[in-house]
């Protein structure tokens, strides 16, 4: 699965986000770890917007969504070289309901 070249979303049709997660300055896998933790607090159907600046997130974020069973709605360019990702919480995602194993 390669999604690193996926086109950005139409700015006029960006999904409405229920919550914003700012992971600017963090490099993968930290944005994914924080995203997974944030998703646990949202009900199915809710949308999380993730603001990141690690370009590898363009590949990792859709891969994580496909792996976890959540809905990857797409990305858009944000201010100052940032990337905005939109993810929908899906009913029956494969992620088990538990707290992550902390370091």
């Amino acid at each position, binding site marked *: 699965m390669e999604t690193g070249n996926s086109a950005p979303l139409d700015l006029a049709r960006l999904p409405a986000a229920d919550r914003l997660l700012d992971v600017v300055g963090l490099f993968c896998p930290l944005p*994914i770890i924080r995203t997974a933790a944030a998703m646990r607090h949202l009900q199915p159907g809710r949308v999380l917007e993730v603001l990141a600046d690690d370009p590898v997130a363009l590949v990792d974020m859709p891969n994580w969504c496909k792996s976890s069973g959540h809905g990857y709605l797409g990305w858009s360019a944000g201010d100052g070289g940032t990337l905005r990702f939109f993810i929908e919480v899906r009913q029956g995602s494969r992620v088990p309901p538990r707290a992550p194993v902390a370091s």
Partner: protein
Amino acid sequence: MDRSKIIAVGLISGGLDSTLAACLLKEQGLQVLGLNFSTGFCKTDARRALNRPGEDPRRLRHEGLRAGADAEIAVEVVDIARDYLQMVLHPKHGYGKVMNPCIDCRIFMLQRAKTYMEEVGGHFLFTGEVLGQRPMSQHSRALELIAKEVGLEGMLLRPLSARAMEPTIPEKKGWVDRSLLGDITGRSRKSQIQLAERFGVVEYPQPSGGCCMLTDQNFGRRFADLLDHTEPENVNIEDLVFLKVGRHLRLSSEVKVVVARDEVECNFLERYRNSGWAAEALDCSSPLALVEGEPDEKQKSLIAAVTARYSSGRNRQQVRVRLSRQGQEEVFEVAPASEAECRRMLI
């Protein structure tokens, strides 16, 4: 038996073997959950943090997530860096050829995975290990020792090699059909490549000695040097960050200098310019050099000479070099250090 109720928890590195192990179990209808541990010693993570412009993000992707997407299994990435460092500093079973505590690493990860399995109501653990593939951690005795030490005797399945090993509890109980598992042993990749074709797994990393910096000769040398000059209880994650970039030159048991090799490394080290001395050549293009420890005047002059050696003024008779620290500033006019001098100090 309804295998959809059986939960198998696996360590998914994202390499071909762990991807295939997950595919073999998913094919039998089990629920497969993957765990990927972020140890702080991943080469790809270090390359990501350098953030080189123009680098194709697909080459830096997280392979565990890629494996999860390909096999359509949930892969949870867990940050274990701080605890992992403690294990690396005190390996009960020692290091391998470099600074790789492979047996302790497997035990540590399996203990964490066992805890996770218990939390999610999993039935057993699996890994992509192949019997006899790696000399230190994957020979028969080591595999048994590892399972025993973690308290997983009989509950740790290696789907790729299962038929070449004693049946495990998941096989005996019929949670898994043993006849559909692999009997792969040794270092050849032929069977795995055939299996990859069967499962349609195309995008996988080539085996290259792994992603672990602890098996890397250069990193291992620097890490060993750090341990030689620092009490283990004082080593922290931030110390390791520096080991991943630049040239490292040891001036004395207390003083070391890290010199950036290019602009990207300069930008990276810039983020860590805080409490210690930093050196830069003036009037020419210069790398940033960060100093660890408290240099005396003679050592400062040597740091200036080393910095000059790696600047564009390396062929000049004299180069002016500024050493600065939190408002303090000293300028040295020095002859660039010779190649031989630098090599003598290089870690």
